[in-house]
């Protein structure tokens, strides 16, 4: 029954600016009502949402700058997608688990992980070694779509643990992009989640591009339609509206934790920057398109709202900016002073129980390295 409801819901999102999606805050910063979704944040919570958006964008910009200066090998910027990430990331309850791609720096931040962690990965110092179980946030996953199956398996485990069916239930969210929807793995994850009625939320950030390829290379209908063919609800949300992203994700997670199975959220947004710092988007998209999206900026609209509603004023905005600046300076300093890993560490952790072959290789390598010592090599 709940399933039926949810499904119907998919098709009842009110008439909104093309394309139809759930929106609670217009680009101009006006709060609009939606029949099925709302938020009741305190002023403090609104301000804190704004804070997170600003800090996350600033840290991201700092990482991009660090890459330009040669301090990172590459960087995948979240610019433009802050609302989708902070909105969904804050919708997670403590017990919920998230499985990211390589771009979810905003969600990572909401999970309380030190924002330096992904920079270690992109600097090439490690491969993203936070503890997924400690922070309830999986490892970054670069192979497109693979994490959606991990998330689904994890969610099956939640079910086996009896952690579904109450307010304390656990839910799992899998992040992926518009491009990822074409991978077999993602579609298999849809099947598994629906067959096992796993407590899953599939959160697709449709940022309109998979590197250079526009959405039309992956689908000829809106992506959120995909879900219905697998037998679970799908909806589209304004991905630049942090309130709407929060509301729909919170609801989907709560449905999942109460045993109502999976759902798909398509957060309709835009990748404002390059795919990564290695990319040159001028080759495949025009400036006017980017400008049109500039007008829908997620931070600007929340700021306008806070302003209009007198929830926050210039002092607050200045204070947040300063906090973000300090955080960025701190990030930079820690990156610059980050030591390179010990070469011998490359042999560590291949196997939980080790391997005599690797022990031997490590030893030979150490001897070999030692042979250069003192030789000025």
């Amino acid at each position, binding site marked *: 029954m709940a399933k039926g409801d949810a499904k119907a819901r998919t098709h009842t999102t009110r008439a909104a600016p093309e394309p139809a999606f759930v929106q609670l805050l217009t680009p101009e910063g006006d709060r609009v009502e939606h029949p099925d979704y709302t938020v009741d944040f305190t002023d403090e919570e609104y301000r804190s949402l704004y804070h997170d958006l600003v800090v996350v964008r600033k840290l991201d910009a700092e990482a991009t700058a660090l890459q330009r200066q040669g301090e990172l090998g590459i960087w995948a910027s979240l610019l433009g997608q802050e609302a989708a990430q902070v909105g969904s990331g804050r919708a997670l309850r403590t017990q919920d688990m998230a*499985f990211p791609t390589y771009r979810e720096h905003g969600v990572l931040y909401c999970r309380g992980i030190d924002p330096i962690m992904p920079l270690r990965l992109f600097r090439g110092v*490690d*491969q*993203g*070694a*936070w*503890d*997924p*179980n400690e922070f309830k946030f*999986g*490892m970054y996953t670069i*192979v497109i779509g*693979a994490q*959606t*199956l*991990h*998330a*689904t*398996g*994890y*969610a*099956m*485990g*939640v079910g*086996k*643990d009896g952690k579904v069916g109450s307010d304390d239930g656990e839910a799992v969210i899998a992040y992926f992009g518009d491009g990822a929807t074409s991978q*077999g*793995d993602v579609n*298999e*994850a849809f*099947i*598994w989640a629906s*067959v096992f009625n796993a407590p899953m939320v599939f959160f697709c950030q449709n940022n309109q591009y998979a590197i250079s390829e526009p959405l039309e290379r992956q689908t000829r209908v809106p992506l959120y339609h995909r879900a219905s063919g697998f037998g679970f609800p799908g909806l589209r949300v304004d991905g630049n509206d942090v309130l709407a992203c929060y509301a729909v994700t919170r609801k989907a997670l709560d449905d999942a934790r109460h045993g109502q199975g999976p759902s798909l959220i398509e957060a309709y947004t835009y990748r404002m920057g390059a795919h990564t710092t290695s990319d040159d988007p001028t080759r495949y998209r025009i400036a006017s398109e980017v400008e049109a999206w500039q007008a829908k900026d997620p931070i600007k609209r929340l700021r306008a709202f806070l302003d209009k509603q007198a929830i926050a004023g210039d002092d607050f905005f200045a204070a947040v900016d300063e906090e973000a600046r300090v955080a960025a300076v701190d990030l930079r300093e820690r990156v610059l002073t980050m030591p390179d890993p010990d070469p011998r560490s490359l042999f*560590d*952790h*291949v*196997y*939980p*129980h080790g*391997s*005599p*072959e*690797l022990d031997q290789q490590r030893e030979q390598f150490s001897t070999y390295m030692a042979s250069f010592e003192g030789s000025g090599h």
Partner: protein
Amino acid sequence: MAETLTIGKALNTGLRRAMERDPKVLIMGEDVGKLGGVFRITDGLQKDFGDERVIDTPLAESGIIGTAVGLAIRGYRPVCEIQFDGFVYPAYDQIVSQVAKMHYRSQGKVSLPIVIRIPFGGGIGAVEHHSESPEAYFAHTAGLKVVSCSNPDDAYWMIQQSIESDDPIIFMEPKRRYWEKGQVNVDTASAPLHVSRVARTGTDATVLAYGPMVRTALDAATAAAEDGRELEVIDLRTLSPLDMGPVYESVRRTGRAIVVHEAPGNLGLGSEIAARITEECFYSLEAPVLRVTGFDTPYPAARVEEEYLPDLDRVLDAVDRSFGF
């Protein structure tokens, strides 16, 4: 206590023991439930442990392994059945990029105690994709361990040891030998998981084999003995990491080595083993290490598989050639 079991039944019983011992152990795969798997290796397990622990999955191997990864992160110990060797490839990405690497990437924070069972090899008259020997693909992949059992006692113990291990393990089952019987000591394991073992002692040449070819090698040794040649047969058991100690020791004594496997020779286990023996026992070798393997063709139609597969005669022929050097 010793029981006489087939390899298939020994695996089944070993799985049952593992499930009894640890409630986190799950069985996942196609048709593993009511049917008990197409080879009945999981027979009766769903009936006794329920369908939350013995899971008939949707028909997609990447899904099986990918969700097993998630279950493992959640603290489960999934034992995944791949129905036949030739159907593991859709899961290849999840195996080599995810299962093999997660412990390394996470600097040990995430272990994936997943066992992937693969009935492998030919000789059963099957149609294509049902008789392959993909072990080299996995052995070449750092982060995976690969083992293969050749007899009921090993089947019984190695499957349990694999499930207990926190390493991700590719468990190659000699499907053509599922029905072969042997003694199983159900009280004590005769050996740890990652060691090779002398299956027959001999002095004239060393024959190395694993899985289904161990029987072939032993048969060859029996035949050779009639001709007055004593072959030492080593059952490798662990394909990655290889346990070369007993091999080097043997080859240093015999001066000759022949590796036997069903997989194509080109870049098969035999090439690695030959390269290592040559490096380690260079001055002991009377002849180059020879390889008796499947040919470098796709697995052929069943009516010519006997010619494709190494058999007693081809092993003896290689022994002769070794002595010809």
